[in-house]
């Protein structure tokens, strides 16, 4: 079992799937709707662009088709024409786009089960730290770009409120997402929700305020983006000479669309907020680590999932520098209590996918290196003491599953 899935409980004492909350239904529907609008909008805009390209005669001085394609490709990937025209715009734009690429790849971990893509999963796991730092470049690039658009007169006069709205979203979304990372959202539960959406087997969404804000803002961006001029594919300027000023017919069409669909969209987007406001959000406090060290049995997996790194790290430097005092100071104790036995009754090591830590860490694509140095199996003499030690609910459930399988 390399995928600890809260949606499919084991045969033993794991809790049954709770009924879907209104918030979860609202956000599930919102996500589907926003995704549909984005995809449909992109398809329509691309079709219109291709039609425009076919209509516009190619500039005779622009070289062969291969050359134009190369330049268009270099524009999309490297923002080449921007580099040669405006260095600062290139720097900010490149930071934004590469940051966005890294962040999007990092987000793939939520929507893919490890088994679905085989060895590509390891690539996603490897990419995770790059996505973390991409997430810093992303809002920085977007913020500086937005600043530049506002401060420079030549850019300000061609930027309207819709563009500002999109740029505001592009800055706000990664900042909220980053805050969510730093506050340790329960990524296992988030992934369960996301997989639930992908497999149409819905799970409750964790009512984390930062997470809900992030998802809502992303939905708004997905809905707004197809209507935005920012999508008018400036990189393709080499194939199609698009001016930076708004094209008159395009602006009229856009305002018609906005007036037609705008109110309905606003209602759809505000509905989930209303539901959240109605039900309220439960805020999970950080636990007191001193008491946790003594006894961290809990029936709420979310609390340990969110806080176990801080719990572990709060202790390790002190223990490394002053020595192992009580048994709980040592990883040996964690490993012994949380040992999972295989079919032969032997505790498994970290190389085995059923190891206690691998269950969540594999599914969340979070690499840990504790067991590069620490022993991941209990000492042979400790095996006899395994059954007498207190166990967590999850540990018990997993152990019971293994025992039942024997």
């Amino acid at each position: 079992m390399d995928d600890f899935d809260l949606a499919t409980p084991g045969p033993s004492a794991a809790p049954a799937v709770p009924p879907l909350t209104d918030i979860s239904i609202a956000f599930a529907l919102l996500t589907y709707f926003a995704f549909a609008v984005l995809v449909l909008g992109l398809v329509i805009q691309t079709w219109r662009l291709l039609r425009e390209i076919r209509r516009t005669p190619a500039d005779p001085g622009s070289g062969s088709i291969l050359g134009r394609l190369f330049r268009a490709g270099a524009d999309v990937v490297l923002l080449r024409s921007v580099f040669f025209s405006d260095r600062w715009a290139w720097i900010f734009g490149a930071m934004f786009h590469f940051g966005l690429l890294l962040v999007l790849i990092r987000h793939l971990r939520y929507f893919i089960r490890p088994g679905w893509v085989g060895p590509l999963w390891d690539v996603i796991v490897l990419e995770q730290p790059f996505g973390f730092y991409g997430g810093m470049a992303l809002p920085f690039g977007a913020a500086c770009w937005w600043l530049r658009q506002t401060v420079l007169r030549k850019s300000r006069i061609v930027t309207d409120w819709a563009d500002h709205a999109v740029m505001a979203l592009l800055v706000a979304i990664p900042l909220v997402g980053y805050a969510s990372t730093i506050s340790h959202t329960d990524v296992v539960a988030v992934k369960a929700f996301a997989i639930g959406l992908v497999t149409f087997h819905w799970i409750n969404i964790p009512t984390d305020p930062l997470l809900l804000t992030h998802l809502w803002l992303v939905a708004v961006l997905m809905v707004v983006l197809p209507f935005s001029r920012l999508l008018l594919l400036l990189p393709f300027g080499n194939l199609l000479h698009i001016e930076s000023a708004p094209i008159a017919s395009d602006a009229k069409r856009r305002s018609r669309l906005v007036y037609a669909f705008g109110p309905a969209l606003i209602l759809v987007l505000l509905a989930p907020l209303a539901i959240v406001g109605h039900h309220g959000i439960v805020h999970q406090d950080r636990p007191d680590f001193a008491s946790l060290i003594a006894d961290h049995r809990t029936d709420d997996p979310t609390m340990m999932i969110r806080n176990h790194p801080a719990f572990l790290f709060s202790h390790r430097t002190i223990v490394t520098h002053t020595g192992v005092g009580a048994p709980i100071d040592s990883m040996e104790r964690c490993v012994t209590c949380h040992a999972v036995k295989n079919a032969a009754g032997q505790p498994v090591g970290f190389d085995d996918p059923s190891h206690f830590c691998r269950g969540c860490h594999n599914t969340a694509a979070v690499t840990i290196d504790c067991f590069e140095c620490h022993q991941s199996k209990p000492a042979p003499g400790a095996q006899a003491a395994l059954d007498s030690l207190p166990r967590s609910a999850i540990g018990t459930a997993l152990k019971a599953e293994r025992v039942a399988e024997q």
Partner: protein
Amino acid sequence: MHAPASYSMLGGYTVRSWAVLLAFGALAGAAGLAAMYMESNGHWVTGMTQRVPWGLPHVFAFFLIVAASGALNVASIGSVFQKEDYQPLGRLSVLLAFALLAGGLFILVTDLGRADRLLLTIQYTNATSIFAWNVFIYQIFFALTVIYLWVMMTPGLSRFYRPAATAAFIWRLGMTTGTGSVLGFLVARAAFRSAIMPVEFVALSLSIGTALFALTMLAFERFEGRPLTSPALLNRFRRLIGILVAVSLYMVAVQHLTALYLAERRDVEHFILFSGSIYSVLLWAGFVLMGSVVPMLLLFIPIGNGRAWPLAVAAALVGLGGLALMYTTVIGGEAFPLELFPGRLVSSSAFDGVVAPYSPSFVEAVLGVGGFGIAGVVVCMGAWVLPVLPGHVGAGADQVDPERQPHPPLNNPKPIIG
């Protein structure tokens, strides 16, 4: 102040320029694969041992880092020392400095046992460790080269030209001192603990760096099919590198002579200088003969007056000699046994009392050469997109215009794209 020269980028995306870029890229890619192989299997797959923990990759890394600070030399001569003839070469010099440092640090970082923990060097710093200081010194050097190049390329920022150049010049001296101190501060090994190490490295940086710059400049001349310097400047280059090589040789000679005098270092000096091992061969035949004496002859004797080949050959030899010296210094110093009981014969199961065997492995060589690959990629791409190559030196007062498309080079084939 001075007549601004015109600058250009490399002319077009020709097959040749793609080939060169891809060749360097392949070297870098191979080094990446070698690093992944070392990382996943552990360092036992290399030739590095418990007694010789730093091997061929570190030799290349030290070489590249020392060369990086020296490559900035030409730009400093043009700006800080106000020798106007060198000024048009300043941009290429700064680009090369950035590229060589990137190559050297690439090797060091990928060779770390836990490279994924690199950022810990910023979170946790030990103020007594020169390594920790170097982490910050190198980053600031990168920033200073970028600022220097930016100032050079932007006409509106010309009032920052001297301050940026001076800052970069002073910083690079500090950087090389820090690099030399990595060895100089080592108490453990008689071959290293010496105050002359940082100074020797500064001298080496001057000769190796300027030599590598000359090679790069001549390579671009060959590639572009047009001269980047005048014959008079070429002769001045020859004399300059000749003098710098003499200074380096002097430093190394003083280091070894003084050490020979000190009774406590006589054993290690005899090992390095006279033992007939690979280390003494590399020192005498590699650094002294091939890397110093022959180049000085080539450079000072007026053969091929105004032609490029004496400079190119001499610069290449100086570079190879510098690499040989690094090998002898770093690995020779490690291979000599630790003197736990000076004057007494020692033996153990852990290679005490004997010269530690070290044979570099293929993956180490690939990783080391990959540093040059990274440097090459950076230089090629920099020359492609930034106007760093001087136009006709002293030709006229054209304004620097990076937006202007470059003229096709004189005798290059027709570009296939663009």
